[in-house]
């Protein structure tokens, strides 16, 4: 059994080497880096689905929160924005938080009745208007500070690696709130609620320019590894590249990708190690017992809702970590790129194909599906070229077919998901 798993991974690496030899090594390395990130996201979803049977469609939102974390921890603070509107903005946010906390406390402490509903509603409504009164001018001030390049608060200026942890915390916080509401009810509600929270998180990132510059994107996020330009000017590096007989520019690009790969591998290794430990611990056995028979587990005295919340938060945190890593790999935050198709759905396909419930399966799924996602497009284009080769150039049908080849990726992935779900629901590497 173990041998077959090794063969799967070997085939994947052989495909990667094939791409490296026949396409280019830069492509192979960039595919591999994203494979690593995808594998981490798949591990996160696998923790939710494979361990506990929770169906969340909000991965995109948690990944996007990781991206925000990369910006707010590692970008240098914009001093002017902080001095003009920062204090007022912080007051507004603290006030908003306090209003919510007070409302919750009132709801819990007051005696049940019409008065309680009225008081809580009034607190929330008045609180909302005071919040807007504090918030709106502060935002206007911050966004007017050098809007072409800044117009936002910036970050804390810490090392980018910290943001990976912060991303996990952000996602965990959001997941806790949503889990608190939607868990313990029927199982589809979590799916619907996470769909909602994810769309809201993305709307916030797109529209709150003071935080993320919105659709203007944040460029130049610091890197955890060297810059190509610096490498090309380092005498030692140039000499080493010469000695290996590789062009300096190519060598620098490969070196950067390789360093990212090493960092990501360390994180992936750490997460797999922890996941395997927890899966084989009493906690992991309890989770699987709950997944397989909630009622029996509840009868044994296990608090099902609480465990579900725990596992949902942990899984989301892993997705948040991966999101922050993704943004630090790209070096920029583009809110428009957070599409449910690209993240939520693709990650699900990875988990199902790889083998839900098995960490190595999730990793394998992440590797293979990402590889296909990238490589199917040129393949699809090539097939379309072949299909349309009989048609004359410039005909409408030919143009249409060639333009829409990209959409076939969705169909392909949907079909893969359905086929695996139907004929091989345990995935490539089944749960032990």
């Amino acid at each position, binding site marked *: 059994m173990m041998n077959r798993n090794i063969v799967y991974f070997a085939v994947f690496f052989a495909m990667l080497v094939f791409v490296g030899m026949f396409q280019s090594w830069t492509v192979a390395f960039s595919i591999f880096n994203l494979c690593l990130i995808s594998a981490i996201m798949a591990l996160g979803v696998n923790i939710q689905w494979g361990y506990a*049977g929770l*169906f969340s*469609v909000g991965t995109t939102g948690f990944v996007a929160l990781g991206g925000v974390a990369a910006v707010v921890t590692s970008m240098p603070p914009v001093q002017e924005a902080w001095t003009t509107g920062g204090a007022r903005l912080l007051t507004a946010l603290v006030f908003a938080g306090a209003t919510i906390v007070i409302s919750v406390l009132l709801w819990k402490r007051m005696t049940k009745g019409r008065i309680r509903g009225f008081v809580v509603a009034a607190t929330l409504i008045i609180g*909302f208007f005071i919040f807007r009164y504090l918030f*709106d001018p502060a935002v206007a001030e911050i966004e007017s500070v050098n809007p072409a390049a800044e117009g936002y608060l910036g970050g804390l200026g810490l090392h980018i690696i910290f943001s990976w942890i912060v991303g996990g915390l952000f996602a965990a916080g959001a997941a806790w709130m949503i889990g608190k*509401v*939607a868990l313990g*009810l*029927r*199982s*589809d*509600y979590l*799916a*619907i*609620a996470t*769909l*909602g*929270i994810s*769309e*809201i998180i993305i*709307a*916030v990132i*797109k*529209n709150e320019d003071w935080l993320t510059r919105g659709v203007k994107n944040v460029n130049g996020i610091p890197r955890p590894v060297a810059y190509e330009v610096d490498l090309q000017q380092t005498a030692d590096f140039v000499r080493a590249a010469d000695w290996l007989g590789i062009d300096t520019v190519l060598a620098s690009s490969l070196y950067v990708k390789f360093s990212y790969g090493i960092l990501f591998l360390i994180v992936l290794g750490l997460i797999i190690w922890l996941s395997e430990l927890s899966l084989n611990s009493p906690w992991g056995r309890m989770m699987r017992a709950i997944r397989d028979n909630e009622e029996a587990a509840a009868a044994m005295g296990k608090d099902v809702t609480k465990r579900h919340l725990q596992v949902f938060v942990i899984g989301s945190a892993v997705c948040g970590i991966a999101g922050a890593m993704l943004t630090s790999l790209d070096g920029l935050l583009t809110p428009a790129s957070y599409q*449910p*198709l690209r993240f939520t*759905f693709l990650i*699900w396909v990875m988990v*199902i194909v790889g083998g839900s419930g098995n960490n190595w399966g999730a990793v394998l799924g992440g590797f293979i599906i990402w590889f296909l996602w990238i490589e199917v497009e040129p393949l699809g284009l090539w097939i379309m070229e072949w299909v349309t080769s009989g048609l004359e150039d410039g005909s409408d049908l030919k143009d*249409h077919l060639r*333009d*829409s080849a990209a*959409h*076939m*990726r*969705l*169909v*392909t*992935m*949907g*079909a893969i*998901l*359905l086929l695996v*779900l*139907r004929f091989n*629901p345990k995935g490539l590497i089944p749960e032990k």
Partner: protein
Amino acid sequence: MDLLNALVVLANFVIIPGIAYGSTLALGALGITLIYGILRFSNFAHGDTMAFGGMFAVLGTWWLQSKGISIAPLPTALLVIPFAIVLMILFLLFCDRTIYRYYRKVKASPIILVMASLGITFIMNGLVRFIIGPGERRFADGTRFLISARDFKAMTGLNEGLAIRLSQVITFVAAIIIVAALFWFLNKTRTGKSMRAFSDNEDLALLSGINPEKVVTIVWVLVAILATVSGTLYGLDKTYKPFTYFMLLLPMFAAAIVGGLGNPVGAIAGGFVIAFSEIFVTYAFKKFFGYILPKDMLPSGIIQIISTDYKFAVSFTILVLVLLFRPTGIFKGQSI
């Protein structure tokens, strides 16, 4: 006079759009709730089913337009809807027979069906984009306005105009007809009654000799009708863009849950609750208050509670409130 003007502003920007949008959401939520009641899973593919039905209507309309056939002043699309419905019925039954039936047979947990519906969502989404493209598609023709703002001003002598688009009226009328027909079907016909029995208690219904496959087939037929009509009318009223239908999923689910999943009356009520809250909360009331309040009391902003970018937050907040305080919905739906 000022009060009348204020009311006209409110009607023009909140009430009439709210009714049209609410009708669409109600039809969509009905489809979701029917599937939930009978097949017992949340159908994530419903938004894209609407897009698919709308696509058939758009293609048919284009074809008729190219032949010069029209039923002006009504939009040509109305002529095409029946044919689009037939195609959708075939398509949905094909999906059911190839995909969902197996999971019913092995009695898979509902969440597996939800996941399968997600897979179908993406296949449909990809096919729609492949066939008709991801961009905006216009297919509306016929008379645009039943009453235009200018006519209204001339008629009443008010400062503010009230525009009623024909597509809004059609949406509302179609919703009423369909809902009435659906309720007649569910409550008066033998098949409808057997469906309700199946929804209430599956085992008992099976014992009384109701054929489950027949019930399922009829559900898909109804869903095809609901989805095609709502998808086409939404496209007619706004504009046809595949992506927007996926985004309708959240408000539609919120509507179905607010009303009580599995409860058709609830789905309609929920549709209007969500639509009106969304429009009310994101509408800028400056003009409205401009007529009511004295000049010096008027605030300087545009008096908008939240920006339209966050309209999902409205459905979401209502959804969360319902989940927190009344998980079965306003009208009792099925909970567990």
